[in-house]
């Protein structure tokens, strides 16, 4: 290794390019310092500091949206900024802001330490932002593991609850397994490319452009294909695609509600961002293998998610299993992205609408949950619309959007994916998706029914089942929920801002 080489690498270290991630990580560390330095009575301000820091990073990213380093390979090929990467940054920041907001609702009800929660959320968010920019499998894996380890802690955050600990253990074991599978795949790919550098810096076999070139020339290399499939399998675990969806219901139920939201929105989006990057930048030549495989995966995911959600009564499990089906719809977009150039944008559009709707629903769930966070049943929603019309309205908009009912944003997301699928001639998959949407109407509508339609009860002496007391939303909380619901409705009518920004 020569000094020239090192100098070349150092020249490409443009720290400004990953400024948002660094500021976020430094702010996260600052939170811990504040906890030590500030007197105990002032600790209640620390969440505000966390939210403020995230807002500032978000503003910085939005202002520098068209950064000068777009498309350049930075840090010796570890990172490449892309327009969709910028979109992903904004997405993860908005999602983490909303998760922090949910944290301010849920955490004060318990005795667990609070500051670490915001710290870990911010670190994980920074790691996700790096993950989607990565252009190199080492960077990719390190960022992914940072995300996963953060989630190990977050899932078991309410450590005095049995269900939470069970969820944490399940997530740990299965998450570690999936990471191992993915790592094995990466190694196989590296081995197949075959240029092992003895000098210790084995950069070529991990770089996405190098892998792409190799696969383009050897699309039927068995070792590389096997490696690619294992990597896709690892990602499938993150997004909860069939047959890696079995961890979802228990983990979603046991995890604290803000973490469930974080898993459902950010973790899934990170998985899809990674999958899109891999499919469009690395594994494109493997289309003959990957398209049938992903098609099958998408169909099975839609079917498994929808049918297992049908019989659920716990709303967190419903969100989890219906989230599986959403992963299935999104996979249609991934399959279509092999042939339809704008399909990746459609996937992001869907993810944004999914975030708005899910966060609105999770917000209502956070206000309705009692002491036991895992115990959130459909029955608790009875007469919600009469007693708390505002929460009922937000819930209806959120659930309606998840179900894909026009004129809400979720419908537009599905529509764009379906049009992409039509252009890509995925007729079988479309039929399955339509069937899935119809099945999903049953459980989503059942939720709305629980909240809006009062069921008939025998009048004499019959008590309605006990339900936890509803936390009254604060002004800021109400505004947040109202903005989410309003955005969901408005995007249903006017998609202009989102579509022009996503560069269809």
């Amino acid at each position: 290794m020569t000094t020239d080489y090192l100098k070349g690498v150092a020249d490409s270290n443009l720290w400004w390019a990953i400024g948002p991630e660094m500021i976020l990580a430094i702010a996260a560390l600052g939170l811990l310092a504040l906890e030590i330095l500030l007197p105990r009575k002032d600790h209640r301000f620390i969440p505000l500091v966390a939210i403020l820091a995230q807002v500032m990073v978000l503003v910085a990213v939005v202002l520098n949206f068209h950064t000068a380093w777009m498309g350049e390979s930075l840090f010796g090929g570890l990172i490449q900024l892309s327009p969709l990467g910028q979109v992903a940054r904004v997405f993860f920041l908005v999602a983490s802001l909303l998760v922090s907001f949910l944290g301010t609702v849920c955490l004060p009800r318990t005795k667990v330490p609070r500051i670490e929660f915001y710290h870990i959320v911010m670190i994980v968010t920074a790691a996700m932002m790096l993950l989607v920019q990565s252009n190199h499998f080492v960077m990719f894996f390190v960022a992914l593991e940072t995300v996963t380890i953060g989630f190990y802690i977050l899932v078991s955050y309410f450590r005095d609850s049995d269900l939470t600990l069970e969820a944490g253990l399940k997530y740990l074991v299965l998450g570690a397994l999936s990471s191992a599978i993915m790592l094995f795949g990466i190694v196989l790919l590296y081995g197949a490319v075959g240029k092992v550098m003895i000098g210790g810096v084995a950069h070529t076999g991990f770089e996405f452009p190098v892998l792409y070139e190799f696969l383009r020339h050897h699309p039927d290399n068995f070792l590389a294909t096997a490696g690619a499939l294992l990597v896709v399998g690892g990602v499938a675990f993150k997004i909860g695609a069939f047959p890696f969806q079995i961890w979802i219901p228990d983990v979603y139920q046991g995890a604290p509600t803000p973490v469930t939201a974080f898993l459902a929105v950010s973790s899934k989006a990170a998985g899809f961002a990674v999958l899109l990057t891999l499919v469009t930048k690395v594994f494109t030549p493997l289309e003959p293998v990957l398209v049938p495989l992903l098609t099958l995966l998408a169909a099975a995911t839609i079917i498994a998610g929808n049918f297992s959600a049908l019989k659920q009564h716990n709303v967190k499990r419903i969100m989890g299993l219906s989230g599986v089906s959403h992963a299935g719809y999104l996979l249609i977009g991934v399959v279509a992205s092999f042939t339809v150039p704008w399909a990746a944008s459609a996937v992001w559009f869907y993810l944004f609408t999914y975030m708005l709707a899910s966060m609105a629903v999770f917000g209502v769930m956070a206000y309705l949950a009692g002491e036991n966070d895992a115990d959130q049943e459909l029955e608790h929603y009875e007469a919600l619309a009469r007693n708390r019309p505002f929460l009922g309205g937000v819930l209806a908009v959120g659930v309606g959007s998840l179900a894909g009912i026009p004129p809400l944003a979720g419908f537009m997301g599905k529509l764009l994916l379906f049009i992409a699928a039509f252009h890509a001639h995925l007729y079988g998959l479309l039929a399955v998706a339509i069937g899935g949407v119809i099945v999903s109407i049953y459980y989503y509508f059942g939720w709305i029914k629980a909240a809006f339609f009062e069921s008939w009860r025998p009048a004499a002496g019959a008590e309605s089942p006990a339900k936890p007391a509803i936390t009254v939303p604060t002004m800021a909380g109400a505004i947040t929920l109202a903005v989410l619901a309003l955005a969901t409705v408005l995007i249903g009518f006017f998609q202009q801002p989102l579509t022009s920004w996503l560069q269809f």
Partner: protein
Amino acid sequence: MNSLDPQLLQLAIATPLVAALIMACGLPKRFSTKLAAVAFTVPALIALWLWKEYPAEGGAGYHYLSSTDTGLGMFGINLKLGLNGIALPMFLLAAIVGLAAGLYALRSGAERLKLYLTLLLIMQGGLLGVFSSVDVFFFYFFHELALIPTFIMVGIWGGRDRNYAAMKMTIYLTVGAMLSLLGLIAIYVKSGANSFDLIELKAVIAHDGIAASSQKYIFGLLMFGFGTLVSLWPLHTWAPLGYGAAPSSTAMLHAGVLKKFGLYGLIQIALPLLPEGAHWWAWKLALLAGVGNVLVIGFITMAQRDLKQMLGYSSVMHMGYCFLGIACVSTAGSGGVVLLMVAHGLSVALLFMLATSVHHRTHTFDLAEMGGLAQKTPVLAALFVAATMASIGLPGFANFPGELTIFVSLWKFSPGMTAVAVSGVIISAIYGLRAAARVFFGSPSEPLQRVMAAHPPVDMGWGERLPALLLLAALLLFGFYPRALSLSVDQALSPAAPGISTMPIHVSPLRP
């Protein structure tokens, strides 16, 4: 034509929606009822104005056009509004029935009246949007906008079995809507037009056409998708149940107007764009509609003992005529369907409204427990009998020219099918007249006498009479002077009109 007319059309759709938004944001109740009354009246006045202004030589094209890009312009989706000769009568129907349903709802004294009116206004806005959309996507979009409040209204204010009915309606109608959405996207993709604009789609397809094999499956998707929404046998089971449970204004708007979405879609989109698919499916559709909707459902209707269920089934049965008219794949057949859609919309809305008025006085829908109401409430009896006559298709009411046109064009398609259809008229005369007789004539039954003793029935006040007379007046007007509608319909459908080359419907013998 006035240069402000396109804006008037937009205003007609926006008024109910904006009013609903204002009411949802917490307008006090006493202002809400006033605002709702205004928001139901404005579109009706605009619709009458646009109808009067519609050029006599309107041709096949669209008028009052306006276009807005909402953000899906790259897919060729724009909010394009306008009316052609087929859309105009439907738009008028939506505005009139909407006004009647709104006026009736204002006087209904429903619990949580503000929410009820808000949902009705959303529905009304969606309905007006459906029939004025030139863009196929927004045509579907507005339909769903109108459909969702239906489910909620059935669930909250519904009668017997409301939860079950709401769930069943939701699932059936979602299936139908999804199938038709697939069909519409398939047209978009297969035409290669990269536009959902119906005018452009027609132009591109007239030039290139869609392959016959694609036409077959797309028409099949649309036929069963729209068919489910219009209660094509055997996908009709949601309809009697849903209408039986729905509150009256919802039933009026849904059975009267929203249900016509599917038929309108078949005439406006499927027939001109997919002529070969239509020919291939014609006989299958005719058999389903003729044997299923007209005969089977006709007999089932005769067996009903519940007034509202009977009306629900009779509405399913009358849709059979409309499908038969579409199966003719001819100008006259389609034209007859448009006339009948308007007429049926007015008459079924009137019947559902009057059925609720009857219920207020008898406290039951059971036909066996009624009788003799005519002596106490002569105006209600007269209106109900008139509406029944209209529904049977007696000359003088708007239903007659519609049914007659369909029967005439059906004769060219198949005399046997015409015999089936005409026998349906006899069936509907039997159940219609029998129901009217059971409710209003004879002597009151034992239970009814007790109810009447407790609550002496009073005749309809002006609050109830006004919407009823509005609907009846329209029925009579279009019955005695069908040209008021048929002129524009004829110009939109006839191949002789200028610029019609993009509309390949011909009165032609069926292909082998």
